[in-house]
């Protein structure tokens, strides 16, 4: 009898333990994990009060890592289906890469049906999240419309106008020659910047950067030849400072005024103002890229992994809708973190017309808004990252060793053909 009582007590105790476990698990389920990188993590944290008003019982846990580490962690998590967050922030380059596999939820299908909101997003950003099979793997939250930032004081000394700078690529380079001769300042940080934008100019909708839809290599086409020729002209006239972005020399060049222009995403104006070169306030202006080229420099998306906890997916989708379709939150991220909105409904906000003190009270956001509507999405190929590396290598050989452009591009073509179908 005593043994029976003991067993009964043990059974009750075990049942109690199990109930506690289930209860703990149930409570733990009321937390949504969002993996992000700076400054998207800050934007998500700032949105938590809005989320809590809608879902008081569901916490948001932000897992923040540095940019590279975050995307490596997401690659690993997707490959093993372990430690997958409920929502992951992805930079545009990774959206393209991840869209090649089947690791992300197709948001065009029920219960998500993102296509009903398609007209509310900037068209090129939505297209960037759509792969060749029509699968929409992510929702855009911010974009990076391309712009030409230039030092107005340097241009004034060289008697170069904005119109001369932006009329065509040739007039841009010719302006650089005058700037260098009069002021000694470089036109750009690196000749590679010139190549990067010219190979993106004139791409037709749906066409890839390095490969077409049949994986044929495109690097010997005229846009690559012209990009290489212009970059070589820049180097031959010593118009580039030969420094890479995000290095000490790069920021010093901005601070000292030795780099007079930078083709970049609109977000760089915020970085210059906040920490790269705050002392140059009022000396910079923004213009459209030369020769009416419109290109995107970066952009952020939110995605849901197929392997993420199924019970959280509807909440995750609600969170993504809140982050990408809520006008107030999109504008708040724009004002606090220079995250240019991907939501078209924000574009009539008076904030766009406010002058930017760092840019000499220029109403630059209007130009960026205009550019964002004209950018064409570029189709992504799984070998784009490798192709980028190969093209940069061949450009270095042209610039530093005098390699013939046709030979360089033919060598790149040969190397890429071996990989195109891997």
């Amino acid at each position, binding site marked *: 009898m005593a043994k029976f009582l003991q067993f009964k007590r043990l059974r009750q105790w075990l049942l109690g333990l199990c109930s506690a476990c289930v209860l703990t698990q149930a409570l733990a389920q009321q937390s949504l994990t969002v993996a992000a990188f700076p400054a998207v993590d800050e934007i998500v944290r700032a949105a938590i009060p809005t989320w809590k008003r809608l879902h008081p019982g569901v916490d948001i846990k932000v897992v923040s890592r540095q940019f590279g580490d975050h995307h*490596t962690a997401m690659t690993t998590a997707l490959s093993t289906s372990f430690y997958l967050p409920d929502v992951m922030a992805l930079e545009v380059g990774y959206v393209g890469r*991840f869209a090649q596999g089947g690791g992300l939820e197709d948001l065009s299908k029920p219960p998500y049906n993102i296509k009903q909101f398609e007209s509310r997003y900037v068209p090129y950003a939505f297209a960037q999240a759509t792969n060749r099979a029509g699968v929409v793997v992510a929702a855009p939250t911010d974009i990076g419309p391309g712009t030409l930032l230039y030092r107005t004081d340097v241009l004034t000394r060289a008697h170069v106008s904005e119109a001369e700078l932006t009329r065509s690529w040739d007039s841009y380079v010719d302006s650089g020659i005058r700037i260098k001769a009069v002021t000694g300042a470089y036109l750009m940080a690196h000749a590679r910047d010139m190549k990067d934008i010219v190979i993106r100019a004139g791409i037709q909708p749906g066409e890839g950067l390095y490969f077409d839809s049949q994986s044929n290599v495109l690097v010997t086409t005229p846009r690559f030849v012209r990009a290489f020729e212009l970059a070589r002209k820049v180097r031959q006239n010593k118009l580039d400072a030969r420094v890479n972005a995000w290095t000490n020399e790069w920021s010093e060049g901005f601070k000292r005024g030795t780099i007079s222009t930078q083709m970049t995403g609109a977000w760089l104006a915020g970085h210059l103002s906040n920490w790269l070169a705050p002392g140059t306030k009022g000396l910079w202006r923004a213009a459209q890229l030369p020769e009416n080229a419109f290109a995107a420099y970066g952009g952020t998306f939110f995605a849901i992994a197929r392997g993420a906890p199924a019970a959280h997916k509807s909440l995750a989708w609600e969170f993504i809708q809140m982050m990408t379709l809520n006008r107030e939150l999109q504008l708040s991220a724009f004002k606090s973190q220079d995250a240019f909105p991907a939501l078209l409904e924000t574009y009539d906000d008076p904030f766009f017309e406010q002058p930017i003190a760092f840019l000499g009270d220029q109403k630059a956001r209007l130009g960026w808004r205009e550019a964002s509507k004209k950018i064409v999405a570029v189709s992504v190929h799984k070998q784009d990252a490798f192709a980028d590396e190969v093209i940069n290598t061949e450009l270095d050989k042209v610039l530093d060793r005098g390699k013939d452009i046709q030979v360089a591009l033919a060598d790149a073509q040969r190397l890429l053909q071996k990989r195109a179908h891997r």
Partner: protein
Amino acid sequence: MTLPKALQLSPKWAPYVFVSPFLLLFLVFGMFPLGFSLYLAFQSWEPTSGLSAMRFVGFENYAFALQDEWFWKSLKNTGWLAVVSGVPQHLVAIPLAYFIHSSFKRLRNGVVGAYFMPYITSTVAIAILFSSLFSTDFGLINLGLRTLHEIPGFGWLVPAEAIDWLNDPDHIKPAISMIVFWRYVGFNVVLYLAALQTIPKDIYEAATMDGAGRLQQFWYITLPSLKPMIFFGVTLSVIGGLQLFEEPFILTGGRGGSDQSGMTTAIYLYRMAFDFNDFGAASAMSWLLFIVVAVLTYLTNRAFRPRDSSV
């Protein structure tokens, strides 16, 4: 006080229980990655699609790696860096250890500590420090060279223009080699100092009485006695040199530098996996690198084996 019987460990199982923590960790963090990498080397895999997306492709990844120009380029870079950074480590460490051993008494530990310091310093800190030292316009190394150039008579020795150490393909490898040499020479000094302390003093005393000078003592007593430690040190340098990753990775921003001049095989296979999404080819390359390391270690062993084992 005795433990309850249920908690007592039988002598039959005790060894297994005691060895199990290590064994478990070794299986999880040692054996499993090895086995998984070998398995991956025969698969084609789009990693972001999950583990179920693997497809068996036989030796296709190995064939691809062996025909890949960049793989061979990375092997050449690795060999160059291993030789240029590795050989001077020993050529400097042996005489330096001998000098410290014979000349320093009270200050010896301090001097050894100073040489050993780079070895225990974080690679990231070292790479950041050297990135600023090697800076083209604002770096101390170019400033020193410029100053040297301006001294009458030294102008021909150093170039007039600032050297672009980390972007010019001709200068990336020497810059990386300098750092690797600086970092590991102290480690080798400690190895050789330990070996020097095992050589009996009477041999030196007898040699001194026979009239041998310091150079002769070094050549005929110290060097032969150090041979086993040289074998150990060279083996470590061969393995470490062929797996070189951290220093060039950080110095070249993780890309391997202009024209991939600083891209070692370890960096390339990392990039193949995480930048170019080709885990299968990356795993195949890692096993090819393992074969190279194994062959060179065997050859090192052969080179240091006693010629006449009967003596």
